[in-house]
Structure formats: structure tokens, C-alpha cells
């Protein structure tokens, strides 16, 4: 029951909803936690979602509570812009090498925004998947935690960079910051490294790369989000027009041996959400959902039923074979309706691809881990402790459940390791 020599600190890698949950749950049980996050802010993919299914509530609401829990906890240390470069040792006594990228802004930043006023260069906004730009000195978003600015490395060593530095009255801008690395001693590691959207460019038949009015589901979230590139108005990227017909294409990459062999679980329900977004904004819009099997487990079934009762939402059992360029920038969705045998070629104002989730391990940015399956999931019963989508394609509620279990496992590891 004791761990006299080893560290009782728990490291959580990844600051999305799963990592945040694992961190606060472990801390609130009385353990010190180090939370490592790759980007400048916590929140991960859920912070980029407009709303959650099936309640259509906003992810930032739960994040706010979790951030308050972190702020009030004395046990959680957060390292942003950091990744794990190396892991040595074993349970109870790990030495983890953490690599940190320069934020060019020190912790004494008060988020006053004076730096952004003098910045001129526009850089692609990662928060909006590059759908718009931000100033080279920017707050990642209004709910950013930590609430600190970032200065893009591109202005370091330029007169603009000096102006940004001079604008900061508290001296928080540091253009000389460089990549850094340091070692931490921890007793257990929870991998909550999450996922990335499967690259839509790989789905060549769906023409995401060259047809502007074909977007992915994660882009749709940003289009519908008040902090998105269109301030929450769902419009066609090509001309800013309100879409009257929208196609939602399921299994864009998932359940496909050429892409992702597994089902990503969340996309069907995310598309139900998107149908709701469109219908809430446009009374005259028609939404067509193309699917192989509608997968809505447990009570989420009632969310599908909600949409099925909307006469302007249609369900077409078909995996579209391709998308073609039509008139007026309209993508034309082509395929076979498997219930009617109709071969269709239907133009839409907007097409949303329900791209799947790919574990971050698949990106090859992680140290070698045990217990990783062929897809890159660090499966729940393997040697390493994982949480959320790092462990498998899970929805938010299941991820939080998984993360709470991961915190339990980590505590067990640090208290019983010898």
C-alpha cells in the first residue's frame, strides 16, 4: 500500500476534456498533478466545438467549471505549449523529459491586449482550423485558459516584434524565448492525448481540397460557433450565402479500410447536431443525412428521433460515392440510395463531411508506448494508462468517464508501486 521511494505525482499528458478531468479528479482525491498540454490553452478539441449532443449545450460551460476547479486547486501545475519527448523508468519512478515551445509571453501577462493593438501581421488562426486569421499577438480565444496571450514566432526579430514588446506595460513579452526541455519526476502517467480530425484531403472523391462548399464536421462546429470565423452564422464559405440545402455525409473516412477501419462513434450524433444548427438558423433549409447505419447508442437514440420528426430533415441510406463540382459553387453529391436503388446526383449549397477521429498517436509525435493497438489507440486494458479518445473513439461523456477511471488507476499506481 505504500510507495516510500517513488514519486506520488501524477502526470497527465493532454489538456483536453479528458486530461483536464483526469487532472482535477486526481487532484481532488489528494494527489499532485502535472498537466502537459501541447497548445497554448487547455480545452483541446471540445473547446473548438460549438455545442454538445444531445443537450445542445455549450462545451465552455463545463470547461468553465473545470477551469475554476483547476484555479482553486493547489495541486495542479499546468504546462502549456509542452509535449513529452522522452519517458524513462517505470511506475512509481518515471523521469519524463518535457519539451516546451516558446510562447514569447511570460506568465506575468495580464491579458490586457495592448500587444495585439500594435501587431499587424495576420497568421492562420488554429482555433478556427485556419478558416480565418489572427494578429501575430493574440489571445487564442475568449475562454482561453490560461488567460495569456501568445506571440507568433514569425514576428520575433522584426520591428513589429519590438513594437509588440514595447507595447506590453508589464514586460511580459519575451521574444528571445527558445525551445526548452526539462525533466520531471512522476509516479504515473495518464495519456490523454486525444485525437485529430481524419484529414479530409485523403478523401479525394469528396473534393474537400478543391470545393470550398465542402467542409468537415469540425469546420462546421466553427462555422456555427459565436467565436468562429463567421460569428456563428452558418454560411457557404465560397460566397457567404445562407445555405438552403445541406448534405451531411456520414462515415467520411470511418468504417473504411482505405482510411479508418473503425467506427468513430461520435459522427452520427455530431451530424444530428449539425442538422439542428442548420434548422435553428434557417426555417426554409432542407437537410439530408447520408448514412450507412445510424449509430446512436443508449439514450442518444432519442436525439436521432428528435431530428427524424423534423419534416425538413431527410435520412438517405447511402454512402455517397463521390462529390462533383456543380453550378454556382454547389457541390453535387452522387451515389446510390440503397433502399430505392435510385442513382442520385443532387446539388447542395453546403456539404458537411462527418470525418472521423484519429488518435494522436497516429501522428507519430509520441514516445513509444506499450499497449497501443494497430490504429494507435492506447487501449484501456493495456500497460499504459489512457483516458478519453487516446483510449478509443469515445464521446465526451464516455471520455470523462474514462478519464475518471484513469485517475483512479493512476492513484492506484502511485500508491501501490514499489
Amino acid at each position, binding site marked *: 500500500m505504500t510507495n516510500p521511494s517513488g514519486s506520488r505525482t501524477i502526470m497527465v499528458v493532454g489538456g483536453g476534456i479528458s486530461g483536464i478531468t483526469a487532472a*482535477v*479528479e486526481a487532484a*481532488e*482525491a489528494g494527489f499532485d498533478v502535472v498537466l502537459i498540454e501541447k497548445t497554448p490553452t487547455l480545452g483541446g478539441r471540445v473547446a473548438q466545438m460549438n455545442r454538445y449532443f444531445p*443537450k*445542445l*449545450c*455549450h462545451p*465552455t*460551460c*463545463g470547461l*468553465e*467549471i473545470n477551469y475554476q*476547479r483547476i484555479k*482553486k*486547486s493547489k495541486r495542479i501545475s499546468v504546462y502549456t505549449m509542452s509535449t513529452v519527448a522522452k519517458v524513462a523508468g517505470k511506475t512509481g519512478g518515471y523521469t519524463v523529459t518535457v519539451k516546451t515551445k516558446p510562447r514569447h509571453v511570460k506568465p*506575468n501577462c*495580464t*491579458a490586457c491586449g495592448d500587444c495585439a493593438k500594435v501587431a499587424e501581421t495576420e497568421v492562420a488562426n488554429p482555433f478556427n482550423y485556419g478558416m480565418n486569421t489572427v494578429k501575430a499577438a493574440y489571445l487564442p480565444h*475568449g*475562454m482561453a485558459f490560461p*488567460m495569456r496571450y501568445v506571440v507568433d514566432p514569425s514576428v520575433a526579430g522584426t520591428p513589429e516584434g519590438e513594437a509588440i514588446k514595447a507595447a506590453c*506595460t508589464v514586460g511580459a513579452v519575451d521574444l528571445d524565448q527558445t525551445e526548452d526541455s526539462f525533466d520531471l519526476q512522476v509516479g504515473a502517467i495518464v495519456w490523454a492525448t486525444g485525437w485529430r480530425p481524419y484529414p479530409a484531403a485523403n478523401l479525394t472523391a469528396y473534393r474537400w481540397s478543391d470545393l470550398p462548399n465542402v467542409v468537415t464536421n469540425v469546420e462546421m462546429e466553427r462555422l456555427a*460557433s459565436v*467565436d468562429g470565423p463567421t460569428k456563428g452564422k452558418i454560411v457557404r464559405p465560397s460566397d457567404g450565402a445562407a445555405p438552403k440545402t445541406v448534405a451531411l455525409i456520414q462515415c467520411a473516412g470511418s468504417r473504411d479500410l482505405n482510411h479508418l477501419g473503425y*467506427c*468513430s*462513434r461520435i459522427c452520427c450524433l455530431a451530424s444530428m447536431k449539425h442538422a439542428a444548427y442548420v*434548422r*435553428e438558423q434557417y*426555417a426554409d433549409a432542407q437537410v439530408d443525412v447520408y448514412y450507412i*447505419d445510424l*449509430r446512436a*447508442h*443508449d439514450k*442518444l437514440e432519442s436525439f436521432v*428521433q*428528435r431530428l427524424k*420528426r423534423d*419534416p425538413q430533415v431527410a435520412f438517405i441510406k447511402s454512402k455517397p460515392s463521390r462529390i462533383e463540382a456543380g453550378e454556382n459553387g454547389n457541390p453535387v453529391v452522387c451515389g446510390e440510395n440503397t433502399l430505392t*436503388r435510385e442513382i442520385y446526383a443532387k446539388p447542395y449549397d453546403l456539404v458537411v463531411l462527418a470525418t472521423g477521429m484519429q488518435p494522436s498517436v497516429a501522428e507519430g509525435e509520441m514516445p513509444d508506448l506499450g499497449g497501443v*493497438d*494497430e490504429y494507435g489507440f492506447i*487501449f*484501456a*486494458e493495456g500497460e499504459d494508462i489512457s483516458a478519453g479518445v487516446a483510449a*478509443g473513439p*469515445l464521446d*465526451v*461523456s*464516455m471520455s*470523462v*468517464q474514462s478519464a*475518471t*477511471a484513469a*485517475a*483512479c488507476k493512476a*492513484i*492506484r499506481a502511485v*500508491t501501490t508501486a514499489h
Partner: protein
Amino acid sequence: MTERKTGVYLCSGCGIGASVDMSKLETIAKTEFKLEPKSHACLCNDDGVGLIKGDIDGGVNQVVVAACSSRVMVDRFAFEPVMTLRADLREKTTWSHPAGDEDTQMLAEDYLRMALASAPKVKAPEPWVDGDYSQRIMVLGGGVTGLTAAAQAAALGHEVLLVERSDRLGGRALEASKRLPHTPPYAQPQDNDIESLLAAVKASPHVSVKMNAVVTRTAGMPGKFAVTFADESIEHVGAIIIATGWRPYDATKLGHLGYGASPKVVTNVQMEGMLKTGSVSAKAVAFIQCAGSRDPDHLPYCSSVCCATSLKQALELIEKDPGTSCYVIYEEMRTPGVAEELYRTAQKAGVIFIKGKVKGVGADLTVTVADELVGQEVPLKGLDLVVLATGMVPNSTNPDAEASDKGPEQLIGDVDPEAPIKVAGYAGEAPADYTKRAQCTPEGGPLLNLQYRQGPHLPVLHDGFADSHYICFPYETRRTGIYTAGPVRRPMDWSEAAEDAQGAVLKAVQAVRSASAGAALHPRVGDLGYPKINLNQCTKCRRCTVECPFGAIDEDEKEYPQVNPTRCRRCGTCMGACPVRTISFDNYSVEFLTSQIKTVKIPDEFSGKPRLLLIACENDAIPALDQAAIKRHTWSAHVRVLPVRCLGSVSLLCISDALSVGYDGVMLMGCKPGDDYQCHFVKGSAMAAERLSKVGETLKSMMLEPERVVQVEASIADSDRLPTVIDDFVAQITKIGFNPFKGF
């Protein structure tokens, strides 16, 4: 108690100093509150924080920071046990109002007054600690979930009481054949390893097991539960994990699928048993999916595991005899995640999938299917076994226990999962309401027979599962210290249930540890305040006992409210409910709020400056306003924002006080109530709306227009909308005219 010594610190950084006259603020602190303020150009830097720390060392025991929003720099301005109050001169003043403006200056002054006036009304809370607390965890149910929970809780160093209703541990896993795949490559059924789990639990010295046990009553609260059993023994535990699992849907209700007419029509549960004992011999087998699930006449939800279970059973049959013909008749194949591997394995093995509705099962086992993919109705003949993939019914009640006269209906129905989506243009008209809404509360009596004012049952959702309504907080039940795990919470398979058990264990561990420290659990984690009731003033109206979202307040034999502090989540709904301000927390009270309301300087009607009070929920409305300020949106400087823990904590006394001191209008801003509620205290905003609905008559009797008091729904993503909402309200009130009670 030592004498209160309040330190006041004004920050002029982040544009505050350039926007408002700091010296006037200093004067207010000195002249109106007799306090010596200290100003600093950047209070959150080491120098500023050092200044405060130095004063604390010098005897300051309460800190007022007039700087940024209370949501930021929380760690910098945390000086526990010294309490910090915040006045927001940045987000809600400088960033959202024009600099150097007279009205902005008045706003800043009022925010400082609000903090200073409320400071004497609160103190750092003293926790409720009362004698012995049990660190023991009770696990109800000895199946996979319960066994896993018991083993894990024991491994974390807690004594565990494992309670099983039957005469053996192992639950449904004992009758199951193989397991669904749970480790890579996830392609084949895996061995049933319940024996190793049983062995682990039996080997643990920390787990004591109570067999054939039925709970007859559960009294107390986290840290102090007293559980009585049918044998009249009483056990004391600190937290409870409900792992009662599931029961199969009653197949006798599935006569239309042939159940009962032939012994060759069996349920998937029976099939498991047949596969386990090897007593199945069939050359042609049809599996009928969604037998009872996803059917408004039976179970409206998807039971989640039946698809994969049928695949597994078919594969077991084929493994035994490769010549077996297996047909799975389905509406949607649901093999989410890596379970897709099992689907492919079954296809490779030759299992045939027919999408369509079953029209009937004949006496000769002919299954008639409307085959949607071929487009014809086909009779499936020559079958020698039909397996109905029946769904899971949660054991959120005890089928053996007598039904309580207080039915579980009282605990469902607060959420309509099938409420129509709000549609632009014709919200409320189309699509039509769902009329056939199944009520799925399973038959039986209460699991724990909770001796709570609000009834003996564990709250369940519309589908009968004892799950949380929150997506981000799946373990947040409405009964503090009691956690559900496994299929009683959500339909799930063995592996998921084992994971779920571990999550519930952690929550139970937190519950027992927090209870003994007198500290709150989620969402106000660590808050040491708790409701104190001045019984001398209590009118026994029972509003607090009825309205508490967590059932924390019971009634004693004299019908006075009795707080169970460790059940309390510190939302303050009781305080808002009480008509005579008898309920308060050390760090939150009606006085704390009204002192802020009353300290605001109300200009007379000739000034042309109305004053409006915006009472805003600190979880969603306040962050939304902060975000609006970060974007430098502006709103009327005539509005004073008063953050509250939850709209549920807002007493009508706050509103009447505001109107009687001359505010021209009051707006309550909080989370979405009703269907899909988003209030993190379950029904705080709903209770506020309920209370407010009764305020109109009172206003009329005071000769005031009911439009002066409104409640608006705000979400955390409303940063672009709220400034307009506020300004519209100001315009509306200006139209109505000034409050006649001004200066009265």
C-alpha cells in the same frame, strides 16, 4: 473570533487607471467605509501580491481586490485561509464602458462599494465537522461492476462492504458464455474471465461481503450513512456505489416476435446460457435485433450491446459448426468504435445481415422480413432457432423490494429528451411534439430506501437509467456521495462497466475524504461553507426541503428543516427559497447580496440616470459577460452586475430590496431551465423562474409595472448577444419610466 481587518487593494493596470479616477475610488474606501486602500499599477505581479501578503502577515484577515474579474488571477489572489473578495474594475467596467466617462466612473465606484459593503457580511467559513466519519465504501451489487469497484476501492486503501442480493457473487457474467472483444485486435469473442475477478475480490482482506442481502433503509449522509438490512443489521459507510446492473427486458411482452409460442424462440440471455453449457444445436439461426429496444411500445432507447452480442453468439455457433447458417435481422448495425472489427469478422465467417423489419415469426419458426435492401418481403424458412436480441432494463429499482408509495415518477420527467429542436421561423409549431413518450422506470421498490425528505429513490432519467444529466460530469448524481456505475447508469458491456466502476470508485473516495473535512464536492469543490438555519425565525414553510436539488435538507420530528451538510453542494437554492432569510452560509447569504444591492448610489430621477440590477449566474452568464468585455463589446453603464452562485440562490427579498431602494429594473440572468436544462445545480434557474412567476402580483400591489423584473436565459456562448439584451432592457425600463420609490 478575532477582529476583522480588511485590506483594500486597487489596481490601475490593464487600462483601469486610464479609464477611471482612482483617487475618487480611494476616497470612497476612506470616507464611506473607513478603510485605508492601497493602489498598485499591476496588482497581480509579484510586487503587488507581495504587498498583500505583507499586510496579511501584519494582521489583515480579509482582502478586497478591486482589479479584474473574479474569474481570472484566482491563484494570484488566493490567500487562504484569508478570504478574498473581488470588485471587477476591468472586464465589467473598463473594458466594456467608455474611458473617462462620468457613468463609467460611477460604475467603478459602485462596484468598489459592493465589494466593501459585503465584506463585513462574510467570513472565511468554518467547516462542519462532527465526530466520526466512515471511510468505508459500500458497493451494492456483486456483478462485474460491483466486483471491480470493490477490488479497486480496496486497492486504494478503503474498507469495502460488498452487498449482493443473491446467494453468489458474479452476477450475469456467471451465466454468460464468452466476452465481447476488449483487447486488440478486437476481432474475436474472448474468454469469460469472471473467475479471476472473483478470486481477486475474495483475496482482498479489505472487502467484506454480505450475501442474500436486501437494504431496507438508508439514512444519513456522505461520511455517515447508516444502512439497515432485512436481517436488521446496520452498517455504517461513508459513500455508496450502486452497481446493481440490469435485467433483461421482459420477453413475454414480445409475443409478436414469437416469444412464448415456441421453445425455439429464445432471448439473447437464454442463448448465452445455452452457449455456455454447450446445449445449443442448430443449423440455421436467426437473430432478431432491437427486440423491444428502440421501440416506443417497449424501450425507446438503444440497449447498445445487443448488436455486438448477437455477432458474438453467431460466431460462437459458427466456431462450433462452420456449417451453421446465421442471420442477423437488423434496422441499424451498431458496432461503434473498434467493435467494427467484430462485425467484419462475423461477415467473413459468413453471417448474413438482413436489413428490415420483422413482420412476424410463425409457429414453424418462419421469420417474415421486409427485406429493404433487396426490396421484397421474404419468408426465412428452415430455421431451428430464433434468438431475440432483447434489451437491457436498468436495475435502478430493486425488483424484489416492495414498491414505495412514493413512486419513482417524482424523480423523472424533468428532461424531455425528445423535445422538438428549436427551429428558426416557426419554433414551437413544427415539428410536432412527440406524443408517445415511454416512461421506463422499471418495476420494483427503491434500491436503498433513502430516508430523505425527497423520497426513497435514486433519481433516474427518462429512460429509467440512474445516470447524470450532464455530459461533462457523468458521475454527478442528485444524491451526493451515492454514485452509479455499470449498466444501471447506461447500457454498457462488461469492459465498459469495469472502467465505469473505477471512475465511480474515485468519486466515492473523494466523497468520503471530503465529507470528513467538511468540504464540498463538485462543482464548488472544497467550499467549507454550509447552510445554517436560524430556527427561531423559521416558519416551517418547507420550501427549502422541497426545493433543494440534492435532497440535502430533511424535516425533523417537529417539522423544522434539518440540514445534512455533507449532502449539500452549496448552491444556495435553500437560501433563495426561504421567505424570511433564515438560511445563510458563512461565505454567502441574503445579507451578503442585499448589502451589495443597497450600497449602490441611486441617482434621483432628475439625473436622467436609471439604475438597473443584473443578477447573474457566475457559471455561465458572468463568463459570457467577461468574454463580451474581452471583445470590448459595450453595454449600458446604468447596469450593476451582481454575480450569484446560482439563480436558485436569489431570494425574492433581493428583488424587493432592490425595488424599494430605487432601482428601476431587475434582470435575472441564468442558465437554461426545463428541457435540456443547463443549470449545474439542476433546477436553480427553474426555481428562480418559478419564484419570479409569482412576483408580478406583488409588484402590481406596489403599483409597479411587472415588466420591471425579468428573467433571461443566457448561455456561456452568448457574449455577442448579451450586451444587446441588457441594452434593450435598459431601453424598455427607460420607456416605462423611473421607479416611483426612488428616494422614498
